[in-house]
């Protein structure tokens, strides 16, 4: 089993995700340079947080043309493994059309860094199965463009398919529609969320609850690989 963390120019949470996968979960993990296009040997690909290409124009707008990101559709199509976008990675995945919707500027226009309370809306996915449905947990957010938005028709579809797996439970820090904090694709192989589970994966940094997301993925992969 092998994971990759894509290093885009301007990624700055790449090492944080790497630390969790490699040091805490002892998963074989590589940093994947953005020019690489061969994703076939990886079972999990993480698009990390940061400011890829400076977030110029819109967060993720330029990053989606990076060769490694351009290789993702085939990887996903082939159901080769899981793709996880955290914060900026989520923005990249939506800009690339690999997850629906868009992330607009926070409603109060400012960057927000703080811990927020979240609720697990769907615990029946490879990314969330170690949680209980409705369970709440704290994770840090750190973004300026995290206001999830989509058309009413699309939102209805997301709700119907239970693609929304994570919502803001108490206050909605950025104005996201329906308090959406994290969504997945229809086939439950691509996950994106604005909060940072990798920043709360050790008790030293908080409750450590974020680790369960990564463990969920690893167990799911183990189930596949036997």
């Amino acid at each position, binding site marked *: 089993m092998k994971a990759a963390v894509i290093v885009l120019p*301007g990624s*700055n949470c790449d*090492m944080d995700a790497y630390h969790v996968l490699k040091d805490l979960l002892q998963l074989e993990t590589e940093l994947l340079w953005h020019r690489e296009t061969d994703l076939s040997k990886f079972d999990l690909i993480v698009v990390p947080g940061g*400011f890829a290409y*400076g977030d110029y124009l819109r967060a993720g707008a330029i990053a989606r043309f990076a060769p490694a990101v351009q290789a993702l559709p085939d990887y996903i199509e082939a159901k080769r493994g899981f793709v996880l976008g955290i914060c900026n990675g989520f923005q990249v995945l939506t800009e690339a059309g690999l997850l629906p919707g868009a992330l607009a500027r926070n409603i109060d226009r*400012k960057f927000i*860094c703080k811990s927020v309370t979240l609720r697990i809306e769907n615990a029946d996915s490879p990314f969330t199965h170690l949680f209980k449905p409705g369970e709440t947990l704290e994770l840090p957010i750190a973004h300026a463009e995290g206001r999830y938005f989509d058309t009413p028709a699309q939102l209805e579809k997301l709700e119907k398919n239970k693609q929304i797996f994570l919502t803001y439970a108490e206050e909605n820090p950025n104005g996201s529609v329906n308090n959406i904090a994290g969504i997945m694709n229809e086939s439950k192989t691509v996950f994106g969320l604005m909060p940072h589970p990798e*920043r709360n*994966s050790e008790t030293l940094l908080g409750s450590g609850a974020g680790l369960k997301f990564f463990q969920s993925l690893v167990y799911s992969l183990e189930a596949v690989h036997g």
Partner: protein
Amino acid sequence: MAKLAVAAQHGFSDREYEAICQALGREPNELELGLFSLNWSEHCSYKSSKRFLRRLPTVGKRVLQGPGENAGVLELENGWCVAFKVESHNHPSAVEPFNGAATGVGGIVRDILSMGARPVALLDSLRFGELSDGKSRRLFEGVVSGIAHYGNCLGVPTVGGEVYFEDTYSDNCLVNAMCVGLLKKHELKKAIALGLGNKLILAGASTGRDGIHGATFASEDLLGDSEEKRPNVQVGDPFVGKLLIEATLEAAKLPELIGLQDLGAGGLSTAPPEMAARGDVGLAIDVTKVPLRATSMSPYEIMLSESQERMVLCIKAGSEQKFIDIYRKWGLEAAVIGAVIPECVYRIQQGKKIVAEIPIPILVGGSPEPELDTRQPRYLGSISQKRVTLAKTFDLRERLLSLLRSPNIGSRRWIYQQYDHSVQTNTVINPGEGDAAMLRVKGGKFALAVTMDGNARHVYLDPYEGSKRAVCEAVHNLVAVGAEPIGITDNLNWANPTDPEVYWTFEQAIAGMSAAASALGIPFVSGNVSLYNQSEARKIYPTPVVGMVGYLKDLDKRVPMGFQKPGDLVYVVGKLDGNFGGSEFLKVFYNFVGGELEPIDLNFEKRLIEAMLSLADQKLLRSTHDVSDGGLLVAIAEMTLPKGLGAELRLQLLTEEKLFGEWPSRFVVSVSPKDKNKIESLLGNAGISFESIGPVERTTLNVNGAAISLAELKTAYESALTRFL
């Protein structure tokens, strides 16, 4: 001709111009004048300050690199080292707050990078006029968003800082940024050029017409009519800044790297000759080799440009391509622009043609130190005599809530919420959770604590004692979280030093800081001086800002600020009485700035710190907070907020002076009842007085019968800044 006029335009006195002519044995051309003007500017040469700076204590067993390099470096354990420095960007921020502050962050980060260290934390110390003033609000908002913009994009957490609002800064805001970096001892780099024939590489962003004469601009008073003289605003590109960090740390791994230096104020005029001076060599550079962003730039413009996000590297001849490839891989430019030469000169060529040539020893460090007088300011005599008549009775509740609502006291959440303080996943004490921020180091059991402090109102009232206090305040913040203070970086923000009264306060402040640091055994390893912070209307308060780093061997012994458990006992520890001088209380309720500043007994201070560290080391402290701005009751209120736990307190004496005086050498701690005897005997044996004031309690803060709900405290505290914004 108008040679002297051109010289004057470059800011030279006749005396300095003569010194130049004499040293060169001829008159300088315009480019040479430009080079001199930057190298000899106050900002780069420290000509008015260095005679006093020499008095600061700089040695210690951990010091690997003291003042003189891009940053100071201290050894921690197992080869781990910490590099840190503070830098000001006051004038640029006053002109364009967003870009001024952003490029300030970029600049200090590259200083740390120059040492071969990875930047792991940022802090910011800010001063503005009162928030009721619209211009101050705009500056404040712009500066905070500029710092956020740059630091967040870099992925370096901004974990702490401080801010004060005071009229004295309404024309000259202060923006000081501190960066902390980590490295292994063998990775240490210096800003040096060595080895005949070795090459000089310029890497990073291309060079444009930005900020020409920035350093000179920073070395003059900020005048209303200086629009015309203003250099182009420098715009930072944090994206390129981030790439530059990664590429440079990769390049620093190559054994062929000899010296590393960032381009800061003065750009190519100052950085390479400084490297040459350290290595006792000469350098020749060819301006036609410099990658340009703008067309048809003259040698003068190229040499004086302050374009951001650039580094110079001195490397072994023959290894050029390796370095260029690394920068290209990261999407950055890198070009060989020069080489080490035998003659000890800085030679600028345009192709084959030599367009300037100046002996290095004259250019770097050759500026004559101006003769400046000092005279004790007249205001000092009267201000310490000033007294205020206190009201006969007071409403404790109302007093406390009003103080918590003061922008100088209340919550800084509005600021730090805009800063990414958790990226890199090392921040174990976040802003608002402790007196100092704390960072773990992956792969180690130890932690670093960092803080910045400096209450300038105290320094204004008594430059010597106030500056001592700034050092002690930083020490307290580190000690409060359980960390041993190990090194200082300081930023001296002052008005125009040619005013003898201003210069006197400068000398006193350095004496005060030296006294405190020497007594407590903490070396200064880096720092910065920013002078000329005044307008026609106002001078700023003398404002020393102390940045300090602490070391904690076992991060499980860190101490939070908030009360942890009902039933725990609360103590005041240290100097139990003192006076009111310079307090926020007097300012808020009596609009009074004056009185005497309680002097610090440094012997007592030393014992107090040792005792506190020993308590922390034995894990006897459930929470600790130092008593500073706002005084005792504010400190206690701040301890109730993190976990929402109150206290049931009974103080022996209930005067306003006791509750709100800001005299130092005091902590509030909470401890488990089972440790009562241990703690009391330890403090008793150390000769440290203490007062037991009651237990932590669930719902309210109760002081001698006056009850204040935690919700009220919180509302007041949280509104301090937001009510203006």
